[in-house]
């Protein structure tokens, strides 16, 4: 490839950038930011599939008006995410941005998006700062604040009468928040509290500590790949049989396909499960499995709800996105049939919802799946809502 | 910066071993100020090792080196070079990506003490260019100053090598086979040049071209297995039986 050709290639590329339509009034533009490349792509893909399930069912419409969903890959790089947000807002002139996978990306884009009076309908990341002091009227989070799930675990541990629990977590903010949440509600004694480095491939050292401590149960926060490694090695160490494993992120729809039988018996906390019994959820799970032939994950469900939320709001405003107050009121009303059954927004515009404890078991179809075993938190509002100035 | 004038150099009981083999074996030598002193000896006699010890690129296992009356045994290469004890290399060692002028300018620059000048363009700095050109003229490369080194013939590179040494205003020059791989004509030029330079510097010369050595040297020292076996005027060395023995078959080469 010689230089002139190189240059001409660049030129045409630049031309292509220009070619992108600057103004298209007709459809409502929705930006969808998620991790779509690299190891984390599995999460982002789930979010996108869940969201698009509704959009495509309605023939590219939400609330009866055509929508154009612009998918962007944040690459787990905050600086890139900020760039993409700038593009979506300044270039594409979107009025709603949804998705957002990781909390560091959420923290980076939260201010620019809400400052621009663009609605941020997050369907996964829910870091504590934006649930509390930094909350914004333009944020609507359809997922949950991590601590809530942790507190559900704590309550459940009490219900089960565990006296001594060993805590493990990945060494970053979410990990610390999460173990903190557990300790708030758990009444028993904490055997030990261990934080492990991010992307630690091997947990043998920690698992030996667990075995030595002989706790009644283990509570661990390991998202994604970390979770897979942890649960496998937990099982191989023979601990799954002797010591109940309460986890967050480690055994959910995204990791079970990789874990399979290795995860049987482990517990997970979430505001949604595939077996929750309501018509909306039945429809969602069935359609999702038919369309993508895999079990929908929590992330897919929350994104599906995000789509439903936008759908309901646009229906109320007749597709008018320019009257921000009207649209905000419509979103705040959350007038849709959530896959979780009931769904309301708290003052910090995180959901008020039930939190379930699910155990990994083989379902009717003989697949390794999540089975709801308890509901330790009912109509629960996360603790950070109090710190949020909004009414 | 003392103006270039020879300084005395001497070694006492110098020893250097490489994995058992002794390259320099209790060498005692004196290089008088202003003399051209040649080191000869069969291959592997440890001539280059001695040069490396003198220049500081090797540290001796025992013994001492005195230069201009001071003990410099533990001085680093660059310290010795700054004090005027400068070497050239057997295998040409220059900066191929630069022009001849730049090569020599780099040498001139290192005389100026430090080079922490960040903005002034060296390409228009007479304080660098003039001495550099002078050195190039001296070795007869003035015309090629602007050419990049990699366009240069081998002989010319050897001359450049010498120009860089001269540009450092040395008091003692350690020349490691300056004639190596030169054509007859080139060699003659170089010999003529060295003859011109004699007296103005102390020169320690390692060279295989015996004709050149015997025509140039004020004194010779014969190294065998790292030990100086004889030292004296060309005449004395010629007639020294030990030297004949040492050189055996090479006897003819001596004549």
């Amino acid at each position, binding site marked *: 490839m010689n230089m002139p050709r190189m240059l001409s290639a660049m030129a045409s590329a630049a031309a292509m950038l220009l070619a992108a339509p600057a103004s298209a009034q007709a459809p409502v533009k929705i930006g969808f930011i998620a991790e779509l490349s690299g190891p984390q792509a599995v999460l982002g893909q789930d979010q996108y599939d869940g969201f698009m399930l509704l959009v495509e069912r309605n023939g590219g419409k939400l609330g009866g008006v055509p929508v154009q969903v612009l998918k962007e890959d944040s690459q787990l790089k905050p600086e890139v995410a900020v760039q993409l947000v*700038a593009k979506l807002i300044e270039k594409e002139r979107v009025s709603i941005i949804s998705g957002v996978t990781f909390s560091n990306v959420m923290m*980076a884009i939260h*201010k620019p998006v809400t400052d621009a009076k663009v609605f941020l309908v997050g369907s996964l990341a829910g870091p504590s700062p934006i649930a509390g002091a930094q909350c914004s009227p333009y944020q609507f989070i359809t997922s949950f604040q991590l601590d809530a799930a942790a507190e559900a675990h704590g309550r459940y541990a009490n219900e089960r009468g565990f006296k001594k629990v060993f805590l493990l977590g990945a060494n970053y903010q979410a990990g610390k928040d999460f173990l903190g949440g557990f300790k708030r509600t758990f009444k028993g004694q904490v055997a030990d509290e261990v934080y492990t480095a991010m992307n630690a491939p091997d947990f043998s050292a920690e698992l030996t500590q667990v075995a030595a401590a002989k706790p009644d149960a283990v509570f661990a926060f390991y998202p994604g790949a970390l979770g897979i490694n942890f649960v496998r090695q937990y099982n191989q160490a023979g601990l799954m049989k002797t010591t109940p494993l309460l986890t967050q992120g480690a055994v959910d729809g995204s990791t079970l396909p990789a874990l399979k039988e290795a995860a049987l018996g482990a517990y997970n906390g979430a505001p949604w499960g595939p077996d929750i019994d309501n018509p909306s959820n039945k429809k969602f799970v069935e359609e999702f499995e038919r369309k993508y032939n895999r079990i929908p994950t929590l992330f897919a469900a929350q994104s599906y709800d995000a789509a439903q939320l936008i759908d309901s709001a646009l229906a109320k405003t007749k597709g008018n996105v320019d009257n921000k107050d009207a649209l905000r009121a419509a979103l705040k009303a959350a007038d849709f049939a959530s896959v979780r059954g009931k769904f309301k927004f708290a003052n910090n515009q995180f959901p008020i919802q039930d939190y379930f404890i699910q155990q990994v078991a083989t379902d009717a179809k003989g697949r390794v799946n999540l089975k709801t075993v308890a509901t330790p938190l009912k109509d629960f509002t996360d603790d950070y809502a109090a710190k949020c100035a909004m009414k | 910066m003392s103006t270039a004038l020879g300084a005395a150099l001497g070694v006492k009981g110098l020893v250097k071993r490489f994995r058992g083999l002794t390259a320099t074996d209790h060498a005692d030598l004196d290089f008088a100020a202003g003399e051209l002193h040649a080191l000869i000896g069969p291959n592997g006699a440890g001539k280059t090792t001695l040069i490396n010890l003198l220049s500081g690129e090797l540290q001796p296992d025992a013994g001492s080196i005195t230069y201009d009356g001071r003990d410099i045994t533990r001085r680093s290469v*660059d310290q010795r070079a700054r004090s005027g004890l400068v070497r050239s*290399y057997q295998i040409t060692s220059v900066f*191929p990506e630069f022009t001849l002028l730049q090569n020599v300018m780099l040498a001139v620059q*290192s005389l100026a003490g430090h080079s922490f000048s*960040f903005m002034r363009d060296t*390409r228009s700095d007479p304080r*660098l260019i003039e001495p550099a050109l002078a050195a190039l003229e001296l070795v007869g490369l003035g015309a090629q100053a602007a050419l990049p080194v990699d366009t240069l013939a081998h002989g010319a590179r050897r001359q450049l090598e010498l120009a860089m040494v001269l540009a450092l205003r040395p008091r003692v020059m350690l020349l490691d086979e300056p004639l190596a791989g030169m054509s007859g004509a080139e060699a003659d030029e170089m010999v003529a040049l060295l003859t011109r330079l004699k007296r103005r510097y102390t020169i320690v010369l390692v060279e295989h071209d015996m004709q050149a050595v015997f025509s140039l040297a004020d004194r010779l020292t014969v190294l065998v297995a790292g030990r100086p076996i004889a030292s004296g005027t060309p005449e004395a060395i010629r007639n020294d039986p030990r030297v004949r023995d040492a050189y055996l078959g090479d006897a003819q080469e001596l004549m």
Partner: protein
Amino acid sequence: MRRTIASFGPREWCACALLSALALVPVWAQAIGEPYYLSLVTRIMVLALAAVGLNLVLGYGGMVSLGHALYLGVGAYAVGILSSHGISSGWVHLAAALVVGSAVAAAVGAVILRTSGMAFIMITLAFAQMAYFVVVGLKAYGGEDGLQIDSRSDFGVLQLSSAPVFYYVVLCCLLAVLWGLSRLVHSRFGMVLQGARINERRMAAMGVPCFRYRLVAYVLSAQIAVLSGVLMANLTKFASPSYMQWTLSGELIVMVVLGGMGTLAGPVVGAAVLLVLEEILSSVKLPLPGGLDTVINNHWLAVIGAFIVVVTLTMERGLFGSLRSGRRSA
């Protein structure tokens, strides 16, 4: 041969075209009503600045640092931490960043410059990783989640909050650094630095202690990276540990080598090509048949990878370096 005749070859034309294009971006973005391109090009220039800094040690000094993101991070967190304590003055931010950055660079450099080759690459990486873990541990400043910055540094009359102003500030920084470098390369210091790369043994034989010159060069290039970090924090109004990740150090190396190391504008070209390509492949719907466009949109990293491989194999001196220069590099 006192002065070299500055005749123009493809290389010079390309450089000038690039610079004048950069100068016109805001006007053009205004004209077509696409302020977004302004922030895109701003980001390109900020990273290009860091790459130019790296080029000083990498291209001219021959020191392969796989840890320059460290200094980007120092710059970013200087802004982040100070603003989080209510200190908004840009001059304070800049001063603090440069002081801390230089101190760190001097200390680190004093250690790492004792090694060379592979060991040098790894030890630079090691220090960057350590710094990364330190920042991730800073719970008070957001830890892994990073640190929001309320408003851009306050430089008095220079209203960084205005995108075009910020753009031109970044552009001026880039041009200033490039100009400085163009002087430095031919200065005595520059000659010694390059001499040390080409033939360290001979430099020593001529009485030049290479270590201290390398150290100064390392600190200088770190300061440039720090500056770029300060700008990055202002651009994104965010300071994140990911600015310190080894992957970013790697990307900087890619930019330098891709564009052509040891050439003035090479890193800028490298950064521009890499980031524009990334932008196009990852999100622009290319007119391709058979769903190939979506495949590329999803797997654009592979295309970039292939591009890097091809350029490395076919252009020994990088995109910009391969252009014939009109000037005898004297």
